[in-house]
């Protein structure tokens, strides 16, 4: 049995076993800390920083998804400093990424009164949809780089190692090695990545076609070559938003 550790979260006493994250300890007493990149099935790497909390005597805000509890720790999950941090993160995401299919993030936007166009002159990340296989499409304009897809493709689930970050900084995107089409990579099309994508950037092809306005009959009438596109393809912008 791991040793039990006593701490307070928002002034409520909590007892949690050693090695528990602040996120889990808070959940024990019903305190919900917002998360975006965190997923129960993935290893946490504190990438998105939406889950930051204040720990008394700590210099910086601590990401709750990886921060471990320690004895006598005093944690605060809401404060002006935390809210400002979370709000700014959300505003930056909203500025660069299409969040229209990320209801959880949109709900946080409301909760933290984030202003979507706070940075009006910032550039949007708007790469074309990649439709290179018959199973799922990749619309990285919707990608917030949470890294879950890369993790489940690697040692968090599938051990296929087909995708990873490519480029750096603002240009960072999830991609395949040498930008090969997915069928030519080590991808096995398990779709674990689709299962953990929080923003609709990865989507089953038939779902996507249905959303494009095709009827089930039309979708099922597609020929093999229509289903199996080889090249990246621009999709006409809808209503001029893209």
């Amino acid at each position, binding site marked *: 049995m791991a040793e039990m550790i006593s701490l307070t979260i928002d002034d409520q006493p909590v007892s949690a076993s050693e090695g528990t994250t602040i996120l889990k300890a808070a959940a024990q007493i019903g305190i919900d800390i917002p998360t975006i990149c965190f997923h*129960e*099935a993935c290893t946490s790497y504190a990438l998105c920083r939406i889950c930051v909390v204040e720990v008394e005597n700590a210099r910086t805000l601590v990401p709750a998804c990886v921060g471990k509890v320690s004895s006598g720790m005093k944690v605060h999950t809401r404060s002006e400093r935390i809210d400002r941090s979370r709000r700014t993160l959300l505003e930056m995401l909203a500025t660069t990424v299409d969040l*229209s*299919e990320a209801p959880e993030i949109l709900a946080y936007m409301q909760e933290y009164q984030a202003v979507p166009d706070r940075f009006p002159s910032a550039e949007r990340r708007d790469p074309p949809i990649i439709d290179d*296989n*018959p*199973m*799922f499409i990749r619309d990285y304009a919707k990608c917030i780089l949470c890294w879950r897809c890369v993790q*489940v493709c690697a*040692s968090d*689930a*599938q*051990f*296929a190692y087909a995708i990873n970050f490519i480029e750096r900084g603002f240009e960072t995107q999830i991609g395949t090695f040498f930008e*090969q089409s997915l*069928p*030519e*990579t*080590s*991808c*096995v*099309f*398990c*779709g*674990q990545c*689709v*299962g953990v994508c929080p923003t*609709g950037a990865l989507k*089953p*092809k*038939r*779902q996507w076609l*249905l*959303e494009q306005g095709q009827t*089930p009959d039309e979708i*099922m*009438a597609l020929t*093999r070559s229509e*289903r*199996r596109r080889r090249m990246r393809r621009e999709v006409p912008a809808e209503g001029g938003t893209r």
Partner: protein
Amino acid sequence: MIQADKIVSTTCPFCGVGCNLQLHIKDDFIYRVTSPFENIVNQGNLCVKGRFGYDFVYHKERVTSPLIRITSQKPGSRTQAFDRSQWRTASWDEALDLVADRLVEIYRRDGAHALAAYCSAKATNEDNYLLQKLYRSIFRTNNIDHCTRLCHAASVVALQMALGSSAMSNTAAEVIYNDVFIVTGSNTSENHPIIAIQMKEAVVKHGAKLIVVDPRRIELVNYAALWLPEKPGSDVAVFSAMAHVILHEKLYNQRFIDDRTENFAAFAASMEKFTPEYAELISGVDRSLILSAARLYANAKNGAIYWALGIPEHSHGTANALSLINLALLTGQIGRLGTGLNPLRGQNNVQGASDAGAMPWHYPGYQRVDSAEAAQKFEKAWNVEPGGLNRNLGLTTTEIMSAVGPKGVCALYVMGENPMMSEPDLNHTRRKMEQLEFLVAQDMFLNETSSFADVFLPATSWAEKDGTFTNTDRRVQRVRKAIQPIGEARPDWEIICDLARRLEKRLGAKTSSFWGYSHPSEVLEEMGRVVPEYAGVKYQRLEKVGLQTPVLDDLDPGMPFLFSQRFPRGKGKFHPLDYNPSTEIPDEDYPLILTTGRVLEQWHGGSLTRHSWLDDLYPEALVEIHPADAAHLGLKSGDTVRATSRRGSIVLRCKVTQKTTIGVVFIPFHFSEAAANLLTIDAIDPQAKIPEYKSCAVRIMPANPDELVNPEATQARGRY
């Protein structure tokens, strides 16, 4: 973004892992599949088939109304009719009346032995229970079998002989508790993908040591501590040599042998000749690898063995499986958490179909048909007059086909199987199919088998009916009706009950075995009353999670792993073994060994996956050939070749790869354009009657690309 009208929880219809699925549905169209992350079977993970491969449900070629052949078919000149113009649509009444009339006519004329049925490991427990009940109680024949005969029959026979039970002894997810495990005759990454990722997790995150014994350098070899590249069919030699080493180095578990086993002395004596040197001669496996593997497994705290069809699908498949069982008994690596013997079952419901009695020698629950006690029990349960049920063993899948002819089987009922793809030596199967007097197909597609039929009864897919599947680790799970039946298709269980009523009426039966079920849950309850292992399996208990059989009563929580106290037959029995070579040995004319199997993206005879977008990902049969053999023949990847055995010949492209070993070629059997089973041999294991799919002799020659049936079908892939 679309909102689902509903999200329905169900069980995957492809392999034996039994992954939990959530079908997202809009206007009766399944557009997305997810899986709950908290479920124990697959922890939210799926493979390409489970996540994307359900679109066969909506395929344009699906048959959605009953069909009757326009030209009447005569034995000897029966033909395949793939074209819809050779069929006319009929009402259910007309189609079922025709089936009932013809079956009764043949039964009255020739008797019970003229009738046979193939049940289906794709169908539910309830469907299978009812079809075997129909044939046994109405037609008084035990000529009922299904594709278990073609997959794990030898494992089942061997496990019954040695332990008295024939299922996987562990829960699949228990693999993380193994510290050493053997995978043999299983390309787990492609055929049980979710179990494979659990195995990789065991190695990478839990420090387990994996020993792969396989003629192919399968993907799991990347994770293995040892790979023993044996020649196909040399399993008895390799595993018995491991036993030999364990005996000589006294690495066995004396206490376990004394307390839990019998026949040790005879077994130990028979192992004397299996020196590692002898095994090396037969199998080509370096003796030092055999020594290391034996020591690693015997010294493991928790050791387990996982195998699939590379073990049973041999003319000595039963001996192969016994050689594994001997190892587990010798080292006591069974009956504890993380130790055991695990035949990975192929089909989603092959365990359940076997449990439900879709087998010629057993009533439901493995109760033998030649036992008077069992027969009386079922006569009572099914309202059959005393002595009415047939006490003779029925014909197996392969025997049914061989017995087709004027004095043998005249009428065949095929529920969802495709023997014209899955039987060995398909030219022989074709000649037999042509001899049938009457053939009923209950299926979704006009495939290679159903196209031979007189009457086609359109069944629903798994998404359109309720029922249960039993997965490879004995877990009974719910299948839920998620969408309305397409067209006039009906669930298999309903079709069978409707037909049974018509048959009883025509035969003037004084008593009825009861066919008036209003829901499959009532069928499962009936099955639970005659199968002790299912007594506590009730629909209301399966709502959230499945139950692992045996479940002896309503309070029994089920059994994650078996044999902790005793084996069903009492003591585990060692079996002395001899090595027997495969039936066909390579020679000058046919210098290569052909082994067959499956690929990740396709499923068996292809009725489902070849009617799915999955087919785009792996659209053609490829023969895998080792670079050394390819160089000898002047072949490079993508070249067209002709593969010829003594029984047939096919043309396909080759893939030059070190995934296969020198002298061995591999062809997947899903593709009718180049059907691997035209080449395979119909030699069978004498005890289990399973065909030798995994080894026959072939010749590979360069061929002209013009000879390919569908040269356009090709897809570059980078996966393993």
